[in-house]
């Protein structure tokens, strides 16, 4: 079994991969670093405490004390000059000028300021003893899957499947060709199908580590869960990985130099990084572009991954995107086999 050519070829592929520290970083480390950085930057913090100012005048400290008692507000006493600067630079959302009547000074086009106006008025009116006529109870929902990180993790997963599929296959094939190793293999009774299949098998092995690392990281740090079944997720990632391995084979089928294949690789991947809704929704592109965008394999893969991870959709409902992913894989693999340069 171990001495079967397919096993030996797959082992060789895997060894060549994990003995390359750069490859390990780009496949496993980089997406996690990216997820972490973007997750922190776009964390949904909620409104938190609104900063408001109270102008120095008679009765200012009483007002400030009343405002501070509200959990939504933090009040500071400011003299007129400082208050103007703070208001203009957005360090406070609103300035309360004591007097009769009270003056609320704020920019009504700023959502935060309008929110502060409501909160300040509420706190002060209640402080004066206003009672609510209508009873109401707050019921807070935190919809899972509505945060940016929930959107991002499946996208990063898709992007990573694309990158490792294309690079993992394309780079090694072209390297073997430039080093005449491919020709050397052709001088043995090795089956071509075994050679190509070994890439697929080693990709699948690393796929599990890759997916587990990113999904596990999202779950551990950002509490990004998988709402659908793990089996569905596994199925989609395997399909996606195979499809991009096929595309990688196609990209590498003729190229004679590493430079040539790198150029082709970027030509294929760059549009998808931007168009396929990895970092932001592809709905932002004009309607005329939508059919093209949706026909891209990464778009379809991202859609399917999000449907399973965020919405918990069953595989059966994902026929359309999975069909697109499969078609790309089958067609590119078939064409690659046809035009592959074995020498």
């Amino acid at each position, binding site marked *: 079994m171990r*001495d*079967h*050519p397919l*096993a*030996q*070829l797959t*082992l*060789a592929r895997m*060894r*060549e991969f994990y*003995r*390359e520290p750069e490859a390990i970083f780009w496949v496993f480390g980089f997406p996690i670093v990216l997820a972490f950085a973007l997750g922190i930057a776009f964390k949904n913090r909620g409104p938190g405490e609104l900063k408001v100012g109270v102008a120095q005048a008679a009765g200012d400290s009483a007002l400030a004390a009343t405002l501070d008692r509200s959990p939504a507000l933090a009040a500071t006493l400011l003299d007129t000059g400082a208050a103007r600067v703070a208001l203009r630079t957005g360090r406070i959302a609103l300035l309360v000028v004591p007097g009769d009547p009270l003056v609320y000074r704020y920019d009504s086009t700023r959502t935060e300021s309008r929110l502060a106006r409501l909160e300040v008025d509420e706190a002060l009116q209640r402080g004066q003893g206003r009672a609510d006529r209508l009873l109401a109870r707050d019921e807070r929902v935190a919809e899972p899957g509505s945060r940016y990180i929930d959107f991002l993790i499946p996208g990063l997963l898709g992007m990573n499947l694309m990158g490792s599929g294309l690079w993992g296959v394309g780079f090694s094939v072209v390297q*073997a060709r430039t*080093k*005449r*190793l491919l*020709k*050397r293999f*052709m*001088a*043995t*009774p*090795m*089956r071509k199908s075994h050679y190509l299949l070994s890439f697929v098998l080693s990709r699948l092995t690393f796929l599990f580590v890759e997916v587990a690392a990113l999904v596990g990281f999202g779950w551990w740090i950002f509490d990004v869960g998988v709402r659908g079944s793990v089996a569905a997720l596994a199925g989609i990632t395997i399909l996606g990985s195979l499809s991009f391995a096929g595309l990688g084979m196609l990209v590498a089928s003729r190229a004679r130099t590493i430079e040539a294949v790198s150029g082709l690789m970027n030509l294929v991947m760059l549009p998808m990084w931007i168009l396929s809704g990895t970092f932001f929704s592809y709905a932002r592109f004009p309607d005329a572009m939508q059919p093209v965008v949706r026909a891209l394999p990464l778009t379809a893969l991202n859609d399917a991954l999000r449907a399973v991870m965020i919405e918990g959709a069953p595989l059966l409902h994902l026929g359309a995107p999975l069909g697109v992913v499969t078609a790309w894989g089958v067609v590119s693999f078939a064409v690659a086999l046809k035009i592959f340069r074995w*020498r």
Partner: protein
Amino acid sequence: MPAIRCSSLGKRYGDVVAVAGLDLTVETGECFGLLGPNGAGKTTTIEILEGLTLPDAGEVEVLGMRWGMGHDRALRQRLGIQLQETQLADKLTVEETLRLFRSFYRDAQDVDDVLALVELEEKRRSWVNKLSGGQKQRLAVACALVSRPEFLFLDEPTTGLDPQSRRQLWDVVTAFRARGGSVLLTTHYMEEAERLCDRVAIMDHGKIIALGTPRELIASLGAEHVVEFALADGAGRAPSVDELAALPGVQAVRPAPDRCALTVTAVHRAVPALLALLERRGAELSMLATHHATLEDVFVSLTGRQLRDA
């Protein structure tokens, strides 16, 4: 039945004719050398025989089989091939590389035995990119031997190696032949061909220009020794080709820009006569050397060019 037979082989790349109508037979158990300068068509020829390059014309039969008849893989089971300039995977160890190649063959040799054969046991756990040039080349030959081949193709197996590595590889080939294997090798080292080959074909411009045992080829020069000399500038008058040819024991004269080579039957008679002639002319020697005639001299006498700068 000969191990290899090919006739009227032809191959061109665009306007360049690489192989121009070549006939060749390698007997079973024989070590056959294709000798020639770079660009003579040796590699194209050997790769056609290996079934890696399609010829434009001609017939090839290897171990009684033809390429492209649907049993190529069965034929490959019986061959061992070392290609010129193959770089094996850098980050696999010697042992892993051999195990990989071994897996392609039905009746392969034990990895340990092959390692012993090429004396790489101590390097079995080293990555390929940590090996010296000679070690890499021995590994390449080991990958060819691991199949227990009946026929071994070696394309310039010792090019660029130091003398010691070269001798080690010669030992490997000699051991392979001792067990009954047949070999076809290309080289541009005449010494290598003389040491290893039963028969040698000298190639130039895609054709075989001489064929025979090394001894026969050297004998075709008509004399066993070569005397080379060069004259210091400006002193006296250089003797003419006819004058040199008339010296006792001289069979042939090959003038070259920087030196003149005489093929002689007896050095002890030719050299004093040469010195006397130069003395009379008032010419002064800047160099004088003699050696046993080699295949190199055969090549020079056939083409008028030196092998290394041809």
